[in-house]
């Protein structure tokens, strides 16, 4: 059921930069350490460390745009008091891999646990049990006062940082190298801001697909030995 919120019902009193820093912190207890953003299955199929920046760039221009676009539209819907179901359906239709939907739903549950405690708000009661991560992120942004551009930056940064942290567990590499990847991705993250920050309608959410990411996620879900969930 849609809830109609007044602007006053949102607690936008915190600093948006600090909220962004809090949400982008790898130590945020939402289960992020269980995810590799697709890099474990890719490395299992022969992806080398040297190719990771190209892998990251491909993700930022495809599946991460789906994620960021969904989050931005969800934020808009929460602010407008509109039903989130069409946003969820749009996200699901753009996420053809079952394992990737499940990974997003597991993270979404983690963020929902966190959000319900840190930013109490009636909107959380309207969420289903396993919302995808971008839906929850969008609602957190609406409630905690994070604007759409910062929300997109969060999605972009999170993805690159997840890949980079996971590679350190999979390949002996200097952590300064992987941190350099995160910094080098900033122009692509800003491109994502231009592409996604002004979206409001579920039909406008990017649907850019990454066939290898999707295919490998399915193979990974059958793998007997894995460090990361997806």
């Amino acid at each position, binding site marked *: 059921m849609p809830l109609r919120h007044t602007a006053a019902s949102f607690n936008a009193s915190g600093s948006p930069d600090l909220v962004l820093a809090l949400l982008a912190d790898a*130590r*945020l*207890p*939402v*289960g*992020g*350490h*269980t*995810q*590799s953003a697709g890099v474990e299955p890719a490395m299992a199929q022969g992806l080398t460390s040297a190719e990771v920046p190209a892998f990251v760039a491909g993700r930022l221009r495809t599946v991460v745009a789906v994620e960021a676009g969904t989050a931005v539209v969800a934020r808009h819907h929460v602010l407008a008091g509109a039903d989130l179901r069409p946003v969820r359906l749009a996200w699901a239709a753009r996420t053809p891999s079952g394992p990737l939907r499940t990974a997003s739903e*597991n993270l979404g*549950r*983690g963020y*929902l*646990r966190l959000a*319900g*405690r840190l930013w109490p708000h009636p909107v*959380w*009661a309207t*969420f289903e*049990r396993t919302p995808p991560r971008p839906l929850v992120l969008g609602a957190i942004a609406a409630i905690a006062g994070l604007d759409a551009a910062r929300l997109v930056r969060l999605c972009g940064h999170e993805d690159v940082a997840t890949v980079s942290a*996971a590679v350190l*567990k999979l390949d002996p590499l200097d952590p300064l190298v992987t941190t350099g990847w995160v910094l080098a991705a900033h122009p692509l993250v800003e491109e994502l801001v231009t592409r996604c920050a002004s979206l409001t309608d579920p039909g406008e959410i990017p649907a850019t697909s990454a066939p290898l990411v999707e295919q490998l996620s399915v193979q990974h879900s059958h*793998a*007997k*030995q*894995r*460090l*990361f*969930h997806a």
Partner: protein
Amino acid sequence: MPETTRPHDADHHRGTRALRLGIAGPVGTGKSSVIALLCRELRDTYRLGVITNDIYTDEDARFLRSEGVLAPERIRAVETGACPHTAIRDDVTANLLAVEDLEHDFDPLDVVLVESGGDNLTATFSPALVDAQIFVLDVAGGGDVARKGGPGIGRADLLVVNKTDLAPYVGVDVERMRADALAAREGRPVIALSRTDRASVDALTAWLGGVVAAFRSGAHSPVDPGPMAPHFHADGTVHSHA
């Protein structure tokens, strides 16, 4: 919205969910076999579920399924991203969701056992994840391990010294090790366990029975074995979260 489990709010859940029991301890001390033993002994007494946290996802889950001690779907593996310590303490989200899923799918359950991925002597469960925990050592790790102490050895709800049947082969005096452990634990329970020693197995199941009863009556409160080392507070007192 999903349940949000808080440390020290067991009252909120009494009667509504299973007792969550963590099994921690160094790699190779027999955490999986302690769980297999508990399942074999108690599957007719309690409705059980198991979560494993192996480094490579499902090795331990497969071992437990192959033991046939529990229906395979009641044993689930959680990935830890090579961070077994994080998964039971700093960020328990993945484990907590897996526990909630088990409770949801097999409602009602009496006890959910959560096996840590096996780390070092400092890894203990957060009370945000479990209500009580067993720390497992084995005689093969050496007779002096118990004396070395650490939060799990000192303050877990139960310390198990496992594989006592191997003691003669590794030159360890079980009674001495047990006495060291009791001293380190200031009287908290210690069980010297062997699968072949019926009395020790009975002591283990009796201990768990006592915890379940206390949990159900509300008399049990989760105790955090605490940080890795005693630490100083601003007022100058030293304190070790006992």
